[in-house]
């Protein structure tokens, strides 16, 4: 459905200057030395992600995959309206803990990032950071129509329309919003994918790193973080 009004051309030339505290600068230390500080380089490691091979023996990998499937740790990060659908899963009615699904408060310990609904450009930046800080193998679920094709925000000036252009998505759950039951069914599907060894999003991200970065940078104008910030 391309019906671009060609009379409107977006401004492609303007760039956003880096925030002042992130620019390189020279600082005089208390003992009189002059040192150069580059916040983006000094505070983060910029090494690109690596492709991690599977375990050497297939049977070991299968065992690992079984464990990964039965111990899904979700990052408690609600990006849009679907965050409301994640909460009932902890309650007695749905009780996702039965299936080995748990919530972790920090990306370091989580394996599953649920993009719950529409993702504005501002939140996309945070979602990328959170995703890159997670340890592989890691999985992404796109929850709701907005992550699939924009949903009701298809003509919004500030929300992305297709999540898998920016992050490697393993599974979409359609609906606006999907009910918590649908989310549970999605977890079961994801478990099947993991057990079959098909959920290799982290490696896909590493392999196509340049492509993903280009897509991310095309929408995030004020890129004020290193390219890969684990």
């Amino acid at each position, binding site marked *: *459905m*391309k*019906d*671009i*009004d*060609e*009379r*409107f*051309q*977006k*401004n492609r030339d*303007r*760039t*956003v200057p880096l925030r002042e505290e992130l620019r390189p600068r020279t600082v005089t230390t208390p003992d009189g030395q002059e040192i150069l500080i580059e916040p983006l380089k000094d505070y983060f490691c910029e090494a690109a992600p690596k492709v991690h091979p599977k375990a050497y023996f297939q049977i070991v990998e299968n065992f690992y995959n079984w464990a990964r499937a039965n111990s899904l740790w979700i990052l408690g990060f609600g990006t849009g309206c679907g965050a409301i659908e994640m909460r009932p899963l902890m309650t007695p009615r749905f009780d996702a803990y039965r299936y080995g699904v748990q919530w972790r408060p920090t990306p370091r310990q989580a394996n599953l990032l649920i993009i719950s609904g529409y993702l504005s*450009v*501002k939140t996309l*930046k945070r979602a990328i950071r959170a995703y890159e800080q997670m340890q592989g193998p890691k999985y992404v679920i796109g929850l709701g129509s907005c992550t*699939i*094709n*924009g949903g009701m925000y*298809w*003509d*919004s*000036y*500030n*929300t*992305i*329309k*297709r999540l898998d*252009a*920016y992050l490697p998505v393993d599974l979409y759950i359609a609906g606006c919003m999907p009910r918590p039951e649908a989310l549970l069914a999605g977890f079961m599907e994801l478990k099947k994918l993991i057990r079959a060894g098909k959920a290799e999003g982290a490696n896909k991200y590493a392999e196509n790193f340049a492509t993903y970065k280009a*897509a991310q940078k*095309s*929408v*995030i*104008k*004020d*890129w004020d973080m290193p390219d890969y910030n684990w």
Partner: protein
Amino acid sequence: MRDLHANLKTRHALGPFEPRRANLGFVTVPAERLRGLLTELRDVHGFTHLVLLTAVDWMEDGLFQLTYLMNDRAGDRTLGVRVMLNRDEAVGEDMHDLWPTAATYQRELKEMFGIDFPGSPRVDEEFILEGWTDLPPYRRDFDSLAYSQQTYAERPGRVTHDPRAHMKSKLYPEG
């Protein structure tokens, strides 16, 4: 409300009163009289609460309309004060000394409509958008659909139905 309007009309060069309900009405005031009117409404007539400050883009007329919606809690009445600004060099008057909350609204208007409020605290900082490089997105000459199609990756295959025709064909296939 009409009494109030009659009382203020000549002194503040108000336009005609446009009632909506018994306790809600709108009135237009020239930009240079705005501060005097708002101050008097707040201090004398009990409109102590600034409910919101918003803008309307009258692109065809070359105007921005600012609406200061003010509420008199004790008297249970709401008055909307409208000001017309020139759209090409949209500069509003900073009101944050009357209501501190106005600063936030003015920051939002600066970002979303490009209406400047000189003197308002932090008015030039980003409010909601981060790294926005294009026209302020609430201006009507900003084409949201075209922008999103030029900017964001799309998944092919999306179709849109006219709801009326679609539901008709679903519910009454024979016609």
